[in-house]
C-alpha cells in the first residue's frame, strides 16, 4: 500500500558539496508491515523518512500511498496520512502549550484547524484515558505546559499524538536515541504496544542491530542510498547480528568501517 519507486535525492546539487543521499530507492510496504531500517551513518535512513514525510523535495521518483500519488503533496498535506516521531524529543511537541492543547492539535491531524474550541470538554475524557496507558501520571497534568516534562515524557506524548488518529504509516526516526537507557526501553515498549494494538504500518530507523532484529516483521538495510538487504518474517527471525554483518560485507564487498554499526 506504500509504493516507493526509484527515489533519488541529492543534497547541494551542482555544488562541490554535492551528496547523493538516495540513489534510487525502491520499496513496497504492505499494510501492517513493521519495518526496522538500519544502515551506517550517511546511508540515507533519515533522508528516506524525510522524503516520505515531505520535509525534503525529491529529485526524481514516485511515492504512492494507498494508490494516491503523493509525490507532489506538501508536507502538511501528507500529514493527513503520515505521522512521525523524531529523534529530538523537543521536536514533536509544542513546549509553550499544555498537554491537552498538544493532544487537541494532534486529534485534528489531517482535518481543519478552524475556529472551533481548541480543547473541548468531551476531548478531555479521551485524552485522560489515552494518557493513562502511558503509566507516567500525565493524565493528572492535562493543563501543565509540555515544556515542564522530561525528554522521555515528551517522547511518550509525541508517540501518543502520532497514533491518536490512526496514520496510514508511522515514521520513527531513531526516536529513542536521545533518551537514557531505561526511558528508551519504556518508550520502545510503548511503541511496540501501540503498533500491535492498532496494527499500524511503521518504519523505524535504529542504530541498534539487536533491536532491529527483535522488533517488527521486516528489516531493510540501507547503504549509499540504496536498499542492500530486505528480509522478512521467518528469514528475519532466524537472523543474528553476526548474520547481518556478514550480509553487509557480502553485498558491499568492502571493508566495514562505521563503528556505530557495531554498537549492539
Amino acid at each position, binding site marked *: 500500500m506504500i509504493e516507493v519507486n526509484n527515489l533519488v535525492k541529492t543534497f547541494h546539487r551542482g555544488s562541490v558539496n554535492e551528496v547523493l543521499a538516495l540513489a534510487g530507492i525502491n520499496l513496497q510496504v504492505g499494510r501492517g508491515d513493521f519495518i526496522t531500517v538500519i544502515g551506517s551513518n550517511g546511508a540515507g535512513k533519515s533522508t528516506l523518512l524525510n522524503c516520505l*514525510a515531505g*520535509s525534503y523535495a525529491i529529485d526524481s521518483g514516485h511515492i504512492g500511498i494507498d494508490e494516491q500519488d503523493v509525490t507532489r503533496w*506538501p*508536507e*502538511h*498535506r501528507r*500529514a*493527513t496520512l503520515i*505521522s*512521525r516521531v*523524531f529523534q529530538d524529543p*523537543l*521536536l*514533536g*511537541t*509544542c*513546549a*509553550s*502549550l499544555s498537554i491537552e*492543547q498538544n493532544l*487537541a*492539535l*494532534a486529534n*485534528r*491531524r*489531517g*482535518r*481543519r*484547524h*478552524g*475556529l*472551533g*474550541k*481548541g*480543547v473541548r470538554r468531551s476531548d478531555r475524557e479521551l485524552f485522560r484515558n489515552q494518557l493513562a496507558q502511558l503509566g507516567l501520571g500525565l493524565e493528572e497534568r492535562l493543563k501543565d505546559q509540555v515544556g515542564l516534562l522530561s525528554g522521555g515524557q515528551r517522547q511518550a506524548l509525541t508517540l501518543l*499524538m502520532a497514533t491518536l488518529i490512526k496514520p496510514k504509516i508511522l515514521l520513527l526516526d531513531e526516536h529513542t536515541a536521545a533518551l537514557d537507557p531505561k526511558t528508551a526501553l519504556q518508550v520502545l515498549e510503548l511503541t511496540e504496544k501501540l503498533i500491535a494494538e492498532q496494527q499500524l504500518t511503521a518504519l523505524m530507523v535504529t542504530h541498534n542491530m539487536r533491536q532491529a532484529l527483535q522488533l517488527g516483521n521486516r528489516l531493510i538495510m540501507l547503504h549509499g542510498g540504496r536498499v542492500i538487504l530486505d528480509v522478512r518474517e521467518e528469514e528475519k527471525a532466524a537472523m543474528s547480528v553476526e548474520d547481518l554483518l556478514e550480509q553487509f560485507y557480502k553485498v558491499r564487498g568492502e571493508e566495514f568501517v562505521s563503528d556505530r554499526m557495531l554498537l549492539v
Partner: protein
Amino acid sequence: MTYYAFIGALEQGLAYGFLVLGVYLTFRVLDFPDLTVDGSLPLGAAVSAVAITAGVDPYLSLLLALAAGFCAGMITGILNTKLGILHLLASILTMIALYSINLRVMGRPNMTLLGKPTILEPLINAGVGMFNAAPLLFALLSVFILLFLLWLLHTAFGLAMQATGANVQMITSQGVNTDRVIILTVGLSNGLAAVSGALLCQSQGAADVNMGVGTIVAGLASVIVGETLFGCRTIGRALLAALLGSLVYRLAIALALSLKLGQFSFTPSDLNLLTALLVVAALTLPKLRQKVLRR
C-alpha cells in the same frame, strides 16, 4: 502632569492598545518581527479619514481601516511565505510601499476631519464630556478586542498559531499549513494596527502620512514594558499586560514631556530617542538583574 495631559495619555494609550495587541501577536505569538505596522497604522488613518470625508459612517470606516490593514499584513505574509523573502525584509518592503499607497489614498500628505462626524459624536451628544468620550469609548473597544483575541487564541486555529511560532516542524506534522497561519496572523496584526490609526485620526482630528514613523518601536516598547510589569504566564495575562503596557508607556512619555530640569525640558521631537532608550533598558534590565542575582 495636568489632568488633561493624563486623560490625553490615557486616550493615546488605549488607541495604541490595538496596535500593541497586534504587535504582541506577531512578535510574541508568531515570532515574526513585523515592521509593516509603520505603514499600516497611517493606512488605517488615511482610509478612515477618506471614508468619513466621503460620507461613510465613522464606525463603518473603522471596519474599512481594519480590512485595509489586514490586506497590507497579508501581503507581508505572502512575500515571506510564498516568495521566500526574509520576514524582516518582507515587512520593510510592504512598509515602504505603503508610504506611496497612503499618499495615493489621501491624495495629499495630510487630511483634517474638522467639522466631520467621528465615532465620538454619539457619546458627546449623549452628554459624556468632550475629554472623557474618547478614553471611555476606546476602553470599551479595547475590552471587546481583548476578549475576541482571548477567544481566538484558544480555538484550534489559535493553538495552531501559537504552535507555528513555537515549533514549525511539530505543527506541520499535525497537518497545518503554516504559510496560511502566518499570512492570516500577520494580516490580523496589521488590521489591528490600522484600527489604531483610524482611532487616532478620529480623536486627533487629522490623518498624516508620517504619523506611522516609529510605530513598531513604540509597540514593542509597550509589549515589553507590559510583560516586565504585569507578567505573561498565561495568554489572558499576556494580552492584558500588552494593553496595560500601552497605557504605562504613554503615561511615561507624558510624564517625561512634563518634566522640567532647570532650563531643560523634553520636547515631542525627543520622543524617538526616549523610546529607543526605553526599549534598550527594558530589554537589558531583566538580563542584568539575572546576572546580579547569580552572583
